[in-house]
């Protein structure tokens, strides 16, 4: 009786909600109220400033209300944007819940969820606005814009990163490498290191000769992060060691010519076995951090921050920004004197190692890498899409771009008589401080922006790329090291082969976005899980050969061929697109 009643209650309520859900599909998500500021300010010409919201499905730091540069930009453009970031949710959960809540921000970078937003019809097409706003149009060539087109033929977002005005002026090496502390190279009198054997030999020798830092911390010759998706530090070196560029998921072999690319799995090559065998030997010798397989990112950074790790394999951005502060702060040595790690030569330089000595390698990519899989978008909930695009366009005006990345003249940078921008030590320190950035700087870092040369032809769009700023920022041992090798930048130091990017490059822009509803996608996920378990296992193994065989067997069970086939299809597709724009294989 009672159960019957409950069942009928549930059923009737189900009906009620399904009709609600049906309604929801009919009406587009309602436009949200303008939120935020209690005091609507006005622009210079008396217009009211509009407040937009923006969500980026990434981790990030919010700006304070009344942020100095945000207000300046608002006065110039009539728009103020409140940025919100991912908190305690995965990108998928966040995008899903934002869609369901029906309250979308005005601007969004959906990250991995960008396609989901598009599929739900929540984004505004860029096509018409591109014609209207030249700064936006200028960002990419026709061919590049076409790569952003979705299957309905429209453009819904533009990736904002790694896009150079005029030419790529990167001074750093933002990508992956085997890094080594400059003091190790200095100690060995700046030798030429080309292979894994030479690299680990040097690390071991140095550690044997200098087992401790001045403050008594014991050194660790080599560590390697393998937490979650950041296990690329352990996993993809075989690709680079064989001399291939960072396609991220596979090697694209072009032995038969650029127009006949062939996808090869780097997990099963001889080089892969050689690399892991080498790590296994080094682990047995105690040259590799015993906690490498279980350390968290925080622990990894803590370890690096003490200066005790001599070598590692990672991408620059993943570790470098986090250890700058600790490296520059004074420490007390056991003899009571103070020292600084950067002055001691603990800064890292990248080595372009290869499987055999003398091979050419492509650890560094000189060209821009176009990632069309996500980017800045305007949502259908936006109060005034035209204003939003006008704002994004204005952000690319050189004066506003300078405000975003250089700051306020006289406060954040100075200009010399040649018109060159420069910063004082204090200004540089300010721009490293979180609290200063929260109340003063406003990069709108997920909105359209440039790298490369400034439109004034003198400066760089980004301070980090300004050659004078770059050299100023280097500690003495690092400068000395660069001089010893006769190079001026990280990328010169690495000495990668200078190649024009292949039409399919970088393939990670595809594999990062592969969804698990195809056999290849499922295989990709299972391969990842298998490697997470087995790679540290073979490194720590007492019986490398048999564990390697078990690993390869477990790996084969994931059906990697399904993934490789899809990768091959993507390479072919990209090649065809390039051909349709007149690309021909270089002879």
């Amino acid at each position, binding site marked *: 009786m009672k159960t019957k009643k409950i069942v009928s*209650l*549930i059923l009737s*309520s*189900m009906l*009620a*909600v*399904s009709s609600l*859900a*049906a309604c*929801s*599909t009919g009406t587009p998500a309602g436009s949200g109220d303008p939120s935020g500021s209690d005091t609507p300010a006005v622009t210079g010409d008396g217009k009211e400033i509009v407040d937009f919201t923006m969500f980026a*499905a990434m981790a990030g730091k919010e700006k304070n209300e009344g942020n100095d540069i945000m207000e300046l930009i608002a006065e110039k453009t009539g728009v103020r944007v409140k940025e919100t970031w991912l908190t305690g949710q*995965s*990108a*998928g*959960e966040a*995008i*899903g819940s934002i*869609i*369901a809540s029906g309250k979308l921000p005005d601007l969004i970078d*959906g*990250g*991995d*969820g960008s*396609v*989901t937003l598009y*599929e*739900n*019809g929540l984004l505004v097409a860029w096509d018409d606005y591109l014609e209207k706003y030249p700064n936006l149009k200028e960002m990419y060539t026709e061919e590049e814009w076409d790569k952003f087109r979705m299957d309905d033929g429209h453009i819904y977002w533009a990736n904002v990163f790694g896009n150079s005005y005029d030419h790529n002026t990167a001074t750093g090496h933002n990508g992956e490498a085997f890094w080594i502390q400059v003091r190790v190279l200095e100690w060995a009198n700046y030798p030429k290191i080309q292979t894994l054997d030479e690299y680990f030999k040097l690390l071991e020798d140095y550690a044997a000769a200098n087992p401790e830092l001045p403050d008594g911390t014991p050194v660790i010759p080599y560590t390697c992060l*393998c*937490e979650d998706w950041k*296990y690329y530090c352990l996993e993809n070196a075989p690709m680079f060691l064989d001399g291939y560029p960072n396609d991220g998921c596979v090697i694209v072999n072009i032995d038969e010519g650029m127009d006949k690319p062939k996808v090869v799995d780097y997990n099963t090559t001889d080089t892969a076995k050689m690399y892991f065998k080498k790590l296994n030997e080094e682990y047995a010798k105690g040259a590799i951090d*015993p*906690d490498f*397989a*279980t*350390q*968290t990112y*925080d*622990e990894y950074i803590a370890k690096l921050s003490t200066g005790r790790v001599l070598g590692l394999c990672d991408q620059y951005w993943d570790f470098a920004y986090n250890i700058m502060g600790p490296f520059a702060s004074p420490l007390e040595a056991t003899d009571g004197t103070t020292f600084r790690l950067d002055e001691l030569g603990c800064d890292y330089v990248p080595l372009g190692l290869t499987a055999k000595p003398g091979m050419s390698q492509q650890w560094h990519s000189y060209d821009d890498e176009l990632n069309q899989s996500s980017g800045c978008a305007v949502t259908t909930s936006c109060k005034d899409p035209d204003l939003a695009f006008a704002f994004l366009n204005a952000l690319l005006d050189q004066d506003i771009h300078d405000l975003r990345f250089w700051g306020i003249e006289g406060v954040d940078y100075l200009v010399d008589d040649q018109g060159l921008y420069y910063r004082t030590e204090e200004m540089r320190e300010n721009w490293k401080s979180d609290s200063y950035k929260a109340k003063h700087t406003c990069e709108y870092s997920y909105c359209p922006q440039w790298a490369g040369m400034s439109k004034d032809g003198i400066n760089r769009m980004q301070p980090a790329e300004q050659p004078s700023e770059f050299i100023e920022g280097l500690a003495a041992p690092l400068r000395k090291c660069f001089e010893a090798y006769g190079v001026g930048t990280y990328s010169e130091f690495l000495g990668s082969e200078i190649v024009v990017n292949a039409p399919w490059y970088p393939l990670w822009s595809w594999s990062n*976005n*592969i*969804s*698990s*509803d195809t056999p290849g*996608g499922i295989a990709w*996920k299972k391969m990842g*899980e298998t*490697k*997470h*378990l087995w*790679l*540290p*296992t073979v490194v*720590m193994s007492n019986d490398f050969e048999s564990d390697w065989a078990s690993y390869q067997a477990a790996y084969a069970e994931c059906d990697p061929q399904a993934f490789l086939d899809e990768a091959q299809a993507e390479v072919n597709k990209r090649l065809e697109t390039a051909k349709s724009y007149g690309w021909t294989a270089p002879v």
Partner: protein
Amino acid sequence: MENSITKSKRTKEIDINKPKFTVKEFKRQWILVAISAVYVVYGIIFYYLPLVGWIMAFQNFVYAKGLTGSKWVGLQKFKFLFSDKTFLMVIRNTFAMGVLNLVFSTIVAIIFAILLNEVKNRFFKKSIQTISYLPHFLSWIIVVAIVHDALTSTGIINEILTSLGILKAPYAFLGDPKLFWGIVTFSHLWKETGWNAIIYLAAITSIDPCLYESASIDGAGRFQKMRYVTLPGLRPTIMILLLMNMGNVLNAGFELQYLLGNGLVQNVSRTIDIYILDWALDARNLDYSLGTAAGIFKTVVSMTFIVVSNYIAKKKGDERLF
């Protein structure tokens, strides 16, 4: 002795008081019925209406198409789950960690509450209680960082064990799948024992002091009083909490395992919630349907546990949920 008397008394009461549905009785308690109705309406709106979403488990749900427009796929999502070896593995992990946590956290919290209750000095008692529940307010991020720190090759545990000669070389505790469940259970106990004991401490206050007095007169020592007065007094609370937590066995968690796990222990560390996060809440392929199917599975199992254990409790004349 005491115990058996109270128990038989309780069983009798239930029999006598079993309400019979009569118009007169209904009229007598109309106010209770009216208020209940309000609660039922509230419950339907906030708890039962969203269950309509369960329909998604039988569809390929796409938000833009809604519940009415999405394609029906029958039991396909359930088939995917139960044919995936990984899903069966995460069920095992979730269940094992859930049961370990249930058993140990209940026992340890009860022991702690009883021992604390024996303290005569009020200041000492209050201080210990306040301290014991403090870790509850730390986030798992912080607790895991400390656990991690203690268990690394240079951590305090390895240092103690090697200096005592129990271990020859530092042991990689965090990379050993055999130890993972133990570490998880211990972390839970560490963080939550004091907090879990609060309910028991409150329940102890409802025990009639006369019972202690008469036990003293009968010559019972402290252990006997704990055994024959305090513990039986706590019995209803223990039973209710056990019954309720029985249904939570499959909610063994996400954060702790996620933060503590790594590639080497992934086969024992991943729980159902982590699986859902990996496969259903992947931004590249949001699969609400799969997530909902897993949720329905959890609910069905939980309700089965609850109904069965409630039935057993009823048979044995114990406190029960419904």
